[in-house]
């Protein structure tokens, strides 16, 4: 195994703790990242000759701090604070307790998802500093040019500095809302991977896997937060279907037609266990808990026709009341069509269409097309499918929709 592959693996495992620990040490996320990168470069240079140190994470941290102090000296900025930091290093820092490093990771997550940042900046910064991904990897996953992504990260760090955002876990008065932001950033990353909104790939599973890994980390660090466990449950349950969601040619296969034997049963088991952990906290289900419960209904049906659609309708109703959203209403309409038939569902979809809240969203005409087709209204169905094909940004999905339009005769 090459030295660079080994260092990359260590970086993936240690980076959040190293960058978190360094940020707390020097008070500057941007500098912390630079120092960590310098330490990695030094590792790549030294380890092939000197051998890998016994504790590579601690080695990287110490080298990064040494580099930091060299920098302060060069810039003659060895003021009182930096002298203090230098002194701490000379005393040979004791291996910090794992708990303390975990706290740094948590601080890092809350900082990267701070509300002063725009949503896309939160996503980029989280993948970079918490996930340890390179700008190239993030740019490729998010389908933006590397230069754009780098610019986004630079600006995000400047914004954090300008707003003097503290490197801290939020206090109780804002904790709930801030945790909500963290979870929503992770879910956005997951969804970008699960149902790619643009480009030629129906799924970008590596992005979804990364989101799941980060969600597991958050749930471990905040074991008393039901929605953190519920988000893990939701991601595990949806990911269990990855193997069944695409045909060999890459075309998407929808839930009804999926070969359920290709669902990952072990992953379903982990998802159900995570939902149980969320429920066991006894604080009721939030938006992720309800979505995970819906995914669990699908996961536990051996065949499509065994699905408990009445229960799914109830869960969507609860979800719609808790977090009103036209997308949830559309999903509820689909569940209603399965539970009670296409006519009632079409009424709901037409009301949604009339409200205009989903204008431009391809799944609205797509669902409408399905319902019209079931009701034998072929001409209207064809027009709806064509409209959906026109609206989607995903090439694979477009060809499926055009195929459905053509099948209306």
């Amino acid at each position, binding site marked *: 195994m090459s030295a660079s*592959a080994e260092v990359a693996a260590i970086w993936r*495992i240690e980076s959040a703790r190293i960058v978190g620990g360094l940020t707390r040490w020097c008070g500057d996320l941007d500098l912390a990242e630079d120092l960590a990168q310098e330490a990695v470069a030094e590792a790549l240079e030294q380890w092939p000759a000197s051998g890998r140190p016994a504790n590579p994470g601690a080695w990287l941290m110490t080298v990064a701090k040494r580099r930091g102090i060299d920098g302060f000296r060069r810039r003659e900025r060895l003021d009182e604070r930096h002298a203090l930091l230098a002194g701490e290093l000379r005393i040979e820092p004791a291996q910090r307790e*794992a708990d303390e490093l975990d706290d740094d990771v948590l601080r890092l997550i809350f900082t990267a998802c701070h509300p002063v940042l725009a949503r896309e900046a939160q996503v980029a910064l989280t993948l970079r500093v918490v996930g340890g991904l390179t700008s190239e990897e993030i740019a490729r996953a998010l389908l933006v040019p590397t230069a754009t992504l780098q610019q986004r990260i630079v600006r995000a760090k400047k914004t954090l500095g300008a707003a003097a955002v503290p490197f801290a876990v939020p206090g109780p008065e804002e904790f709930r809302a801030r945790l909500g932001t963290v979870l929503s950033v992770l879910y956005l990353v997951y969804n970008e991977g699960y149902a790619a909104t643009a480009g030629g790939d129906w799924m970008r599973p590596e992005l979804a896997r990364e989101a799941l890994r980060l969600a597991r980390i958050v749930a*471990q660090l905040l074991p008393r937060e039901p929605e953190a466990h519920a988000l893990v449950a939701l991601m595990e349950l949806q990911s269990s279907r990855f193997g069944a969601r695409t045909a060999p040619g890459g075309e998407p296969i929808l839930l009804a037609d999926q070969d359920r034997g290709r669902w990952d049963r072990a992953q379903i088991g982990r998802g159900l266990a995570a939902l149980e952990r969320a429920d066991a906290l006894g604080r009721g289900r939030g938006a992720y808990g309800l979505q995970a419960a819906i995914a669990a209904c699908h996961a536990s049906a051996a065949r499509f026709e065994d699905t408990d659609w009445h229960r799914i309708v109830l869960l969507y109703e609860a979800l719609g009341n808790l977090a009103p959203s036209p997308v949830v209403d559309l999903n509820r309409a689909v569940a209603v069509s399965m539970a009670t038939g296409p006519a009632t569902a079409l009424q709901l979809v037409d009301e949604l269409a009339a409200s205009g809240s989903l204008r431009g969203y391809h799944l609205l005409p797509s669902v409408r097309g399905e319902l019209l087709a079931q009701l034998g209204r072929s001409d209207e169905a064809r027009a709806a499918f064509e409209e959906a094909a026109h609206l989607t940004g995903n090439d694979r999905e477009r060809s499926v929709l055009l195929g459905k339009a053509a099948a209306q005769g």
Partner: protein
Amino acid sequence: MKYMLIMRTTDEALAASAELDFEQIIADMGRYNESMINAGVLAGGDGLTPAEEGVVVDFTADAPIVTDGPYGETKELFNGFWILDVKDQAEAVEWAKRAPLGAGDKLEVRRITGVEDFPADNEWIQKEAEWRAAGEGEPKA
């Protein structure tokens, strides 16, 4: 990617570990497992009871021969495993290196096959898919 870390050890190493503080072994192993859980990579794992409690079914002869464990001439005993959900083999190896094991112990790192590793048009692969869908032969969560 899912990888299995397969733990193998020798009679000598097992005998040597009997001298060690059991509480300490449990604590070290617990910390190791916790670090993988915290990193979001541990997907499963278990240890096995001593090989003396097991039996071996040997297919060398025409009919399978069942003998008491351990494996006779085999020097290495399989005594536990972890399943990791990681990015690549390098990350699995990196986690393997961190296991609290000692002289005589080995971890074999093997990728676990997924549905994508088999031809989807094979009759038996399709049957297995049906069994899995029905939840037969699957470990309970």
